[in-house]
Structure formats: structure tokens, C-alpha cells
């Protein structure tokens, strides 16, 4: 088992994936100090507009921690990192109807849309998943970003086991449960997507009939 894990680490390093930031050794570091001047600047530089209220710049613990990437990625930051991941993990709810897989066609529409939640939107504007902004998904869509990993062939490659399904559900709900400072938004935590929409995005990745798995 141990040997396997060592090999896995080598493989991940070789393919350029920096997986566990805790492996990187850094000199002694402390979290950046509260700076009244900075706080004042942030407070005075913004105004509320439409649905974009001023409380959007009030940081929660995760945001505060991740705004100091040097510390967040350091050995010294590890304990805090784990605490934040646990906090986010604990906030995840499994689907109320026990259903994980919805309609992949609708999931594709959600994945395509990067709209919603800006001051030019209203509370009624449907919020998109914005998935293609960062991920390759259906290989037929050539306009995709690469901030996140490719998800082409997601289910076909990983299989459709309950473990994969639960992991995927959790990751869409709250990516910070696995990586405290993941670039991926916390879709359930901030109610960006509702349960049904997340089931539909799940289907895009994990329905064997989805073009992602063809």
C-alpha cells in the first residue's frame, strides 16, 4: 500500500500536478497581519449596486485564509488548512431526495452559462455553473478553459461507483472541502446552484448517456 502511494506521488509530480501543497517545504511564515489601512481602503472603495451588496467584501474564514496564499500553502498553514477543509466538508448536504443524477442536457446548459450574481443581474437571473470557463467537459465544445482539470470522459474513466458519485457531489457542492483554497466556487454554500441544478451537472459528468462519457 505504502509503495503504491509513493509511486502515485511520483506520478503526480512527473505529470506536473501539484497535489498536496503540504509537501512543499517553506521557511517559517506567519499569516499576514490585519492592516487597518488596507481594511479602510477596501471599505471606502466600493459601493453597493443592485444585488451586489457591500457585505460581499466581508470575508468568511476560508476567504480570509486564502487571501494570503503564501501562508495558506506553507507548512505552517497546514493545521488551519485542514480545519478549513473540515469546516467546508461538514457543511455539505447530500441530496434530500437521495437522487444524485439528473438531466445531462440541462446540466450542459448550466455548464455553458457563466451568467448571474453580478450587479448587472437581478435576483431572478439564473446563475450558471460557468463550468466551461475553467474545464474541458464535452469534447465537442472547443471553447473551454484550463484553470481546472479536464473532465472529458469523466464517468467513463473513473467509473460510476458510489464513491465517485459522492466525491463528485461533494466537490460540486463545496470544492474547499478537499482543497481549502481551490479556485472553484462553493456552489451549494453560496446557493449559486440549487439541488436540482447540481443533480443536472452531476448527470453531465456521470450519466453514461451524457456526451461526456461517449
Amino acid at each position: 500500500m505504502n509503495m503504491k502511494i509513493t509511486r502515485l506521488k511520483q506520478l503526480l509530480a512527473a505529470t506536473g500536478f501539484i497535489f498536496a501543497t503540504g509537501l512543499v517545504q517553506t521557511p517559517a511564515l506567519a499569516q499576514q497581519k490585519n492592516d487597518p489601512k488596507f481594511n479602510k481602503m477596501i471599505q471606502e472603495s466600493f459601493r453597493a449596486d443592485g444585488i451586489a451588496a457591500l457585505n460581499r467584501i466581508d470575508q468568511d474564514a476560508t476567504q480570509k485564509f486564502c487571501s494570503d496564499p503564501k501562508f495558506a500553502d506553507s507548512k505552517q498553514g497546514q493545521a488551519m488548512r485542514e480545519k478549513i477543509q473540515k469546516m467546508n466538508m461538514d457543511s455539505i448536504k447530500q441530496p434530500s431526495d437521495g437522487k444524485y443524477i439528473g438531466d445531462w442536457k440541462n446540466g450542459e446548459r448550466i455548464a455553458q452559462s457563466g451568467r448571474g450574481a453580478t450587479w448587472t443581474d437581478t435576483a431572478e437571473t439564473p446563475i450558471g455553473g460557468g463550468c466551461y470557463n475553467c474545464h474541458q467537459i464535452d469534447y465537442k465544445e472547443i471553447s473551454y478553459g484550463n484553470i481546472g482539470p479536464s473532465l472529458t470522459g469523466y464517468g467513463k474513466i473513473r467509473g460510476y461507483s458510489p464513491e465517485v458519485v459522492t466525491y463528485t457531489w461533494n466537490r460540486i457542492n463545496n470544492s474547499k472541502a478537499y482543497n481549502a483554497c481551490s479556485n472553484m466556487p462553493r456552489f451549494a454554500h453560496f446557493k449559486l446552484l440549487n439541488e436540482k441544478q447540481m443533480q443536472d451537472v452531476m448527470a453531465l459528468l456521470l450519466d453514461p448517456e451524457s456526451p461526456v462519457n461517449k
Partner: protein
Amino acid sequence: MQRKLTLGLASGLVAALLTMTSSVSAQKSATDDIAKYREMIADGNPSELYEAAGEELWKKPAGPKNVTLEQCNLGLGPGVVKGAAAQLPRYFKDTNKVQDLESRLMTCMQVLQGRDPEEMIDAPFQKGPKKDMEAIVAYVVTLSKGDKIKVSTAHPKEKEMYDLGKRAFFFQGGPMDFSCASCHAENGKRIRLQDLPNITEQKGAALGWGYWPAYRVSSGQFWTMQQRLNDCFRQQRFPFPIYGSDVTIALSMYMAKTANGGTVETPGLKR
């Protein structure tokens, strides 16, 4: 179970890496084609239309005092426009502030012409007084085209602004947890097909800072740096950054200083 799950995912990852190679070539040709597209539209930048209008506005008496902007001091002395934008933001003694191009122009409009800066701050982009500001900016930045970006942090206020900007660059907030760094702190990243410059490094900062203000083909509008930053914050799902506010100047200072040595290519032509 936790361990089994990790291993399952890991083998999935390996398989994903193997299948990725085939799609990489398709992606490469798509980005090559986009480069060709950009080349095709490079000739004939509609920014020129704004620049011409801006030059007229610069030389036209306006405001309650009915005076032109020709004596405006953009940092190189009253009336010197050529090369001035390449050295902004900078500290100005008369206002005792670090100012970017637009906040400095507001000072000139207030002092020379007697115009109320609040009217400019409150106006929507592309309309009313902002429309004039945008044309004037197009004129001023064109006169630094080809110059080297040369921003100083020698004055303590400049250094302070730079530090504040750097911190603001990594400041996460909003319902999507985004900061500037979410998209602009790594090399080789894209949103959809758009390359994202890594602004934490000189090369990337020069690619970003050096090409804005720009004519934006998607909106058919000339965008100043203030509008560019405003739209970044909009897409970050932040509240509305006040025009000319310190956070916008601090971020500009961080970008410009990081970009030092790069070339001013403004006005650019952007997607």
C-alpha cells in the same frame, strides 16, 4: 474507504491524462486560429476614432472656467502629454496623493476647468462626462505608445500604494470566492479560449497593463483602465468599485510596477 476512494480517483486521473493528449492538439489549433483572427483585426483599431475626438476635447475650452486641458500636469510638467501615461500611476505633490491617469485627469478638470469631480465619478461608463473622459484617455495613452513602462515606487506613498495593491490583488470575496489572483496568478491559464496573463510576473503584467486602455470588439467600446478594472470586479461578483477609488489605483500601481520595462502598446484592441 477514504483510501480506496483516493486510489480510484488517482487511476482515473492517469487515464484522464492519457486521453487528454489527443484533445491537446485540437486545442492548440483553436488557439492558433484565434491568434490569426487577432492578426486580421489588428489593422484598423477603432480606438483611433476616440483618440481623434479626445485630442479635440483636450484643446477645447470647457467647464465653468472655459479653459482647455492643455496646461494639465500629468507628472512630466504642465502641458507635457507625450510619454506621461507610461509613468503613471505616480505621486503628485499638489494633491498629496498617488493618482492614476483618470483620477489625475479629474484633478485637472477640477483645477483648470472648474468641473465637479463628483459628476464624473457618478456618471455611467460610455455616457455623459465619462464619454469625454474616455476620448481624452484615448488621446493621452496614444502619446505613450511604444514607450517603456516606467513606474516608480521611490516615494513612500507610492511604495505604500504598491503594497496595498498587491494585497488587494489576492483579496478574496463575493459568492464565488474570487480574487484577481484566482485567474491571474499562474502561467498558461485560460478562461474559455482567452489567455490569462499572469500578472504576478513582469511578462504577464506587461501583457495586461501594456495593452489597456483598449477598444473592445465584444462591446464595440473604448475601455479605460478604470472600466477594465470595474468589469473585473463585476465578474468577480464584488460590489461596485467607485470610480477612481484607492483600490483601483492601488491595483493599477501593483500591475504597472510589476510590468516595468515592458512596452506601452495602448490603445490596444481586445476581444
